[in-house]
């Protein structure tokens, strides 16, 4: 069988004279209807370096990576790989140019072995048998990945799976590896291992593009950091010369909001009381939630900080009644709602801004006014006596559009046609109507533009002023510190520490979130 050249040969063909960057992006622009995703992006990724790209969700990082991996074509600008301009119209083109991508969500078949997963789609390179196995072993040893080709993927942990994904990319001859939010799914020790692997790749002369919004990690691993804001590159900095707060301000483009601008409105009247909440893992692992207890007072914002996957999503869903099997009691304004259905909990006064607005917040192919009705099917003005009142719902949607500055031609437009920020403003407006006593906001500014972000922050502050209890979950520590009256840290399904946002730093929160504090205590 004739196979395509092994990596050694490939290296000759893409050998780069030092000084010429491995990848150079110049003036990249990409527009979607109503949105400018990328505008004048300029990045140089040096050979043998780790280049981090940071930015808020929605800043345009993922569009940029899709362009670099050939998934989407840019409207303007040029891409150079190793000094020559290339046109990437598909991932196959990108791979041919030596660009590989490791996605945040693994694309592995669980019931196949590592070998089978790696050769899948690349059968022509080294066959599917012994030669491929030898090659995988060689790559694994060369970069210290420690991957056994004959193990089944289902038996591997998350960190090992990620290494298989990296190996897949290397097997295909990549010289530039893009990692999209690789640490979101990892526990701290695995993060350290990953960083070890990345440094190994760097030492072998490969370039790593590392996308993240976790600033401390970026500062610890990257050689260069490019900040993306509102679709454009605002700065490229040396990690040795910036602090994470400076980076954060570059990302947001303004002074971060501070709680001192608002007088405390916390009262001693408890609105939400959660006692002994637990939730077993149906797969038999450690409990998703165990013995979670907290109170939120009238006019108080309680922030929940935690590394993603430590139980915050489950906590929200358990309070909303979407998680059968959760235990403990929930009292809302002196009413025990533990046995209530989601509908009755909403009627009892819970407003819910879900983490994933496309999956949980909207009917994308329905008009805005029907989305106004969603979650309020039983309440005026959208409905009465089992009937949906279209006219009243349309009128109330118009009210939300005006009051919450939703940029849309009108309430008959499909939700899909709006930008993320406007979709989110509509959701916030909807959840604030119907007189809630508790507002649950899960990652309320994820994937929205900066203008909408500020508006949503204002709405949350306003809810607090109106005397609501607010439960705020966010991965953005500055958002949590800026908005919350109190912060609880969740780790492996438990609340492990309570912080006062006026004297906590993102650093201290970060170490509590990863459990580092436990070790020192």
């Amino acid at each position, binding site marked *: 069988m004739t196979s395509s050249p092994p990596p050694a040969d490939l290296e000759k063909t893409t050998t780069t004279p030092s000084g010429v960057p491995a990848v150079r992006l110049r003036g990249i622009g990409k527009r979607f*209807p*109503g949105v400018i995703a990328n505008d004048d992006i300029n990045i140089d990724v040096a050979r043998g370096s780790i280049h981090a790209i940071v930015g808020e969700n929605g800043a345009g990082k993922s569009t940029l990576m899709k362009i670099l991996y050939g998934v989407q074509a840019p409207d303007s600008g040029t891409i150079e790989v190793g000094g020559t301009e290339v046109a990437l119209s598909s991932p196959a083109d990108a791979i041919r140019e030596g660009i590989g991508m490791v996605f945040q969500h693994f694309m592995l078949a669980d019931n196949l072995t590592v070998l089978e997963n790696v050769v899948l789609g690349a059968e022509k390179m080294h066959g599917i048998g012994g030669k491929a196995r030898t090659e995988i072993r060689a790559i694994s040893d060369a970069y210290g990945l420690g991957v056994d080709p004959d193990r089944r993927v289902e038996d591997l942990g998350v960190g090992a799976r990620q290494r298989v994904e990296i190996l897949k990319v290397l097997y295909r001859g990549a010289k530039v590896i893009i990692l999209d939010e690789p640490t979101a799914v990892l526990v701290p020790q695995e993060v350290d291992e990953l960083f070890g692997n990345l440094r190994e790749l760097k030492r072998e002369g490969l370039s790593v593009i590392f996308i993240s919004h976790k600033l401390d990690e970026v500062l610890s691993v990257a050689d260069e950091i490019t900040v993306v804001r509102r679709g454009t590159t605002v700065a490229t900095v040396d990690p040795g010369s910036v602090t994470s707060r400076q980076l954060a301000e570059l990302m947001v483009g303004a002074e971060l909001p501070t709680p001192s601008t608002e007088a405390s409105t916390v009262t001693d009247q408890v609105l939400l009381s959660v006692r002994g909440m637990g939730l077993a893992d149906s797969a038999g692992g450690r409990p998703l939630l165990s013995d979670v207890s907290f109170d939120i007072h009238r006019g108080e914002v309680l922030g929940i900080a935690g590394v993603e996957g430590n139980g915050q999503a489950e906590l929200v869903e358990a309070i*909303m009644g*979407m998680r059968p099997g959760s235990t403990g009691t929930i009292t809302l304004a002196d009413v025990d709602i533990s046995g209530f*259905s*989601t*509908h*009755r*909990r*909403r009627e009892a006064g819970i407003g*819910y801004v*879900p983490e994933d607005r496309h*999956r*949980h*917040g*909207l*009917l*994308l*192919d*329905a008009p805005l006014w*029907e989305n106004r*009705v*969603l*979650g309020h*099917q*039983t309440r005026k003005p959208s*409905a009465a006596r*089992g*009937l*949906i009142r279209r006219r009243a719902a349309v009128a109330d949607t118009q009210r939300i559009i005006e009051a919450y500055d939703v*940029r*849309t*031609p009108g309430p*008959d*437009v*499909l939700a*899909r*046609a*709006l930008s993320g920020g406007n979709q989110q403003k509509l959701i916030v407006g909807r959840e604030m109507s119907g007189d809630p006593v508790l507002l649950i906001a899960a990652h309320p500014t994820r994937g929205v533009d900066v203008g909408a972000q500020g508006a949503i922050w204002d709405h949350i502050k306003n809810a607090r002023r109106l005397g609501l209890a607010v439960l705020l979950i966010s991965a953005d520590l500055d958002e949590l510190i800026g908005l919350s009256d109190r912060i609880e840290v969740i780790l492996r399904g438990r609340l492990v520490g309570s912080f006062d946002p006026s004297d906590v730093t993102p650093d201290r929160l970060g170490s509590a979130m990863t459990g580092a504090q436990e070790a020192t205590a």
Partner: protein
Amino acid sequence: MNVRLTKFLLGLGAPLLALALAFGITSLVLIAAGDPVGEVWSTLISWPEQRNQVNIINNAMVLFFSALAVSIGFRMNLFNIGVDGQYRVAVFAAAVVAGEAWLPGYLNTALAIVAAMVAGALWAGFAGLLKATRGVSEVIATIMLNFIATSLVAFLLAKLAVREQGSNIIGTKLIPEGSRIGGFSIGDAPAQVYGFIVFSVLAGLAYWFVLNKTRFGFDLRATGASSTAAVASGVSVKRMTILTMMASGAIAGLVGLPILFGSAYNYGSTFQSGLGFAGIAIALLGRNHPVGIALGALLFAYLDEQSNPLQILVGVSPDIVAITQGVIVLTVVVSYEIVRRYGVKLEQRRVAAELEAMRTTSKQTEEVAR
């Protein structure tokens, strides 16, 4: 262009595109088989005689119920492929109840109709219950229940039936004359249009009202559009699955009744079968809208009826219309998707343009104010 007009034209364009494609593909099949294309189409597309008109309307009525039943499921992403079994169980239940004549006259008819709907609802409800509690795919469950229904009805028929004099045909007791539903004639045709057509119209209206105007309908459509968003909004998807399957089954229960009350008057071994599957195609063609479904049912019934003389007149098997009908289903799915994507793109462009315009005017007014 006016937004509503654009939407209307897009909605109309998709089925027309599908029909034109199906017409073309069928013609290619005819050409490939060496059959006279022109004559086949001129036979199919001739104006039907009054006798045939009656048959078309009567068949369309049956197909309409069948498609309506399927489309309720479609609105919630449930595929009720078991209309065939549901209507068999239901029509048998109705025939037994009506034949026993516990109540006089039309009260008996009403009781029988209720019995049919309950029987259909329960039969489909099994599949809903299995899906909600055990996660069994409703496609598998309903198709299995079809076989069980056929056997169960045959078994019960043998137990309950009376043998007709001088023949091997067995059936339930005849429905008393006072409980039958009379029809009306078109011109001088001897056959009559089933009076059950009134119920078709009522069912269509009820379908539209429940789905578009009630909370139940909203929950159903929301679950179909995004079950995750429905859950977050407080809809119990399990409950909706069971209720929707039961509603679908209740409508499916009406499929055989026009024939039962209009011409057969009892359920026996010769009762017309195979009425459950065409509904799937018609529901797709009619875009799950009662008017669309009514038109689709008329089209399918028309093709069936007009194909009868093909063998005699032009020597082509009437089964050619089965090809046309099958191709329609495929082209419908494709053309609706094309038109839907085009519509979404159009909408996004329009929103972007209008927002752009709003921004410029607000800037201008600012400048004027200055």
